[in-house]
């Protein structure tokens, strides 16, 4: 799979990554090369193989729905770029 500049711009938008227009052709070349490497996987038929998500095939552990962590909002918001009254501040979303 070879990616062109418009593919790169679309992917960067999906990933919310700001990249400059100048850098787009180089990303297209590099990402295409990586996909070429990745597609070596297609040499083998895996239709009868089940996907492996956890190396020990462990299933998701469940726990009782109980409060186990104490409140540390001030601690967590202390490292935020902008907060006010316990809320995170971002540019206006709704006019």
């Amino acid at each position, binding site marked *: 799979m070879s*990616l062109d500049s418009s*593919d*790169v711009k679309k*992917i*960067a938008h*999906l*990933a*919310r*990554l*700001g*990249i400059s227009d100048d850098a787009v052709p180089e*990303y297209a070349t*590099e*990402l295409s*090369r*990586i*996909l070429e*490497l*990745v*597609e*070596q*996987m*297609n*040499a*083998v038929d*895996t239709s009868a*193989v*089940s*996907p*492996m*998500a*956890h*190396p*020990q095939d*462990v299933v*998701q*552990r469940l*726990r009782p729905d109980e409060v186990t962590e104490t409140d*540390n909002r001030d*601690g*967590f918001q*202390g*490292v*935020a*770029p*902008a907060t006010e009254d316990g809320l*995170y501040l*971002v*540019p*206006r*979303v709704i006019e």
Partner: protein
Amino acid sequence: MHNKTIAELSAGLSAGEFSSVELTEACIQRISTLAGRSNCFITQTPERALEDAKHADQRRATGDFGPLTGIPIAHKDIFCTQGIRSSCASKMLDSFVSPYESTVSAKLKAAGTVLLGKTNMDEFAMGSSNETSFYGPVRNPWNHDVVPGGSSGGSAACVAARLASAATGTDTGGSIRQPAALCGITGLKPTYGRVSRYGMIAFASSLDQAGPMTRTAQDAAMMLQAMAGFDERDSTSVDVGVPDYSANLADSIDGLTIGLPREYFAEGLDSGVGDVLEQALETLRKLGATTVDIDLPNTSLAVPAYYVVAPAECSSNLSRMDGVRFGYRCEDPVDLEDLYKRSRGEGFGEEVKRRIMIGTYALSAGYYDAYYLKAQRVRRLISDDFTRAFDQVDVIMGPTAPSVAFALGSKTDDPIGMYLSDIYTIAVNLAGLPAMSVPCGFADELPVGLQIIGKPFEESRLLNVAHQFQQATDWHQRAPQEYL
């Protein structure tokens, strides 16, 4: 003092030959004069170290201590350490002072270790040469013109340069073993699920695993003892008992069967590295081990599958770096989308952006089955290869890396070439197996690592084999001239 192993330092502390404060002061002094040569630290924490050391001496005086109490170590800067910058070597987290503590660092703190600082690494652990760090590359203590390997390059360099007796590392595709090999130290990647990932900044969650980087296998056993164990805070942590990792170190390896994958000794392996490995295997045969050739037929699919699974998971994990709740935020965003895009575009380095984009593409609508699901299927084939091999052998051995450390800058413009430097380590992560790298000689005056791969949860056996090898050789005792 700096040439002593953890085991020797622990004995010295117990015998009252020196205090932890004296030991720590010596380490701080050495770091302040020597760390700059390799750039192995991002943050030095001398005040915290002295506090820890005083506390350790008090604990030893009152009898409330373990073997690691008072031992100075360093943490890879991927571990969140409360009140200390935890940057993951990224501009994105340059000002991130963690509000909470990772399980690994909390357990090592509880064991009484002394924190000397946070080590340099590839940005978000994405790299094999420690050249993608926002804080500049790390240089190999054996030769400052070559790379230390990555991503735990700072941890490897700091232990190789005798600036700390041990450091923590993390390994997603070889990031403990490859730098350990390139810097001539001992590194252990435990079984997936053995060590908690809580508070370890996530790169690829189904592959990431923390482990110790030390000078000897004996020290690695002591470190792993403190790091391993079930943790409710990590949903992939496995609830199996932690054995005494030091108990079997002295066992003979007479009768051990070692599998040598033909694919690991084929084209692509540097001949100098191959010669050194052959001598190491001869040493093991003299200790009573037998070697048999085995096949891991899907080896060539490991790097391709990894470069779907790891980027896919990284693109998901790194979506939390959005400039809203923590980390870097761009100047004067005009709207929310601009805030996201510029904060991430300016905060992440090139390699991280490449991997986020590959992962985003692989997970995007219409491509998930062809890439991610396909890779997860290939992953099972690779895992099955190992399972079959372990029916006839006790451990698998081969090179850790295809060559010795390469020149700084020589692969930075060639991402694929860089990816292939992990060709012998990546399959182990996909299969979730434990593996070690131990120093086994030199080629072109640079260290060579022997990789030892084991069955799930057989870290004790790996440590036993590595320790017996180190009893018969002195490669692990060699130190770079400039840091003697």
